[in-house]
């Protein structure tokens, strides 16, 4: 089963997305900051990561930078609550497939995951 890691410091949102993904036929787990995401990427067994940009400890941009070094082929989809261009441009520059804006439309998320090669 395709395994997705959902990373967001808003625990409820991370869990909501993970539950929705599980209902849609994915295996999903959560991480609450960039450091936890990096450590889970090292442990392996992930097929894709969905990552918030604004997080404490280690933000999404830096987490993507490190994950690209550790597992260059693991697709990462960023998302942000900031409407400006900076998070979008910088996350894609660091190797994110694309950056979605919050609130996330779940149908759009599923479609993007499939485009990224993380099909159910």
């Amino acid at each position: 089963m395709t395994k997705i890691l959902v990373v967001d410091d808003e625990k409820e949102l991370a869990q909501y997305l993970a539950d929705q993904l599980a209902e849609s036929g994915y295996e999903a787990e959560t991480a609450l900051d960039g450091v936890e995401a990096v450590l889970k990427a090292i442990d392996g067994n992930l097929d894709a990561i969905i990552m918030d940009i604004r997080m404490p400890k280690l933000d999404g941009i830096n987490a993507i930078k490190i994950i690209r070094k550790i597992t260059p082929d693991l697709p990462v989809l960023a998302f942000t609550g900031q409407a400006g261009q900076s998070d979008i441009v910088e996350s894609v520059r660091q190797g994110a497939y694309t950056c979605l804006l919050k609130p996330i439309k779940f149908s759009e998320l599923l479609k993007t995951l499939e485009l990224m090669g993380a099909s159910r």
Partner: protein
Amino acid sequence: MIKVLIIDDDTNLLNFLTEELTDAGYSVKTIDNGADAIVMAAEQTFDVILLDMLMPGLDGIQVVRVLRKVSPKVPIIGLTGYVGRGYMSQAMDLGVTILTKPVVFSELTKEIEDAIKNKQKTEAVSSGKPAQ
């Protein structure tokens, strides 16, 4: 010039080591927490990393696990005031040389030189060239 990254939340120790290592001819960068350290190690290359194994936030073993992935060949010297047997063996399994605090400067520079020599030997063996 040998490039050293020092990661420690004790700024007094960072200042002391920076001054001493710079005087001894090393190029030194410092960072006071594990999260920023793994970003810096992913962006820049160092010849050796000195790491406080007990810091608030990201713990030393977690930092080592990430460093081993982002800069796999760089020797890591762990600095710690606490030496539990389980912790020591965990660090050593990850290839970390442990030095206990308080740090004796002559011991530290010897460990740095030894670590760099070992790294050069390993690289020479894998590339088939003689070590310098």
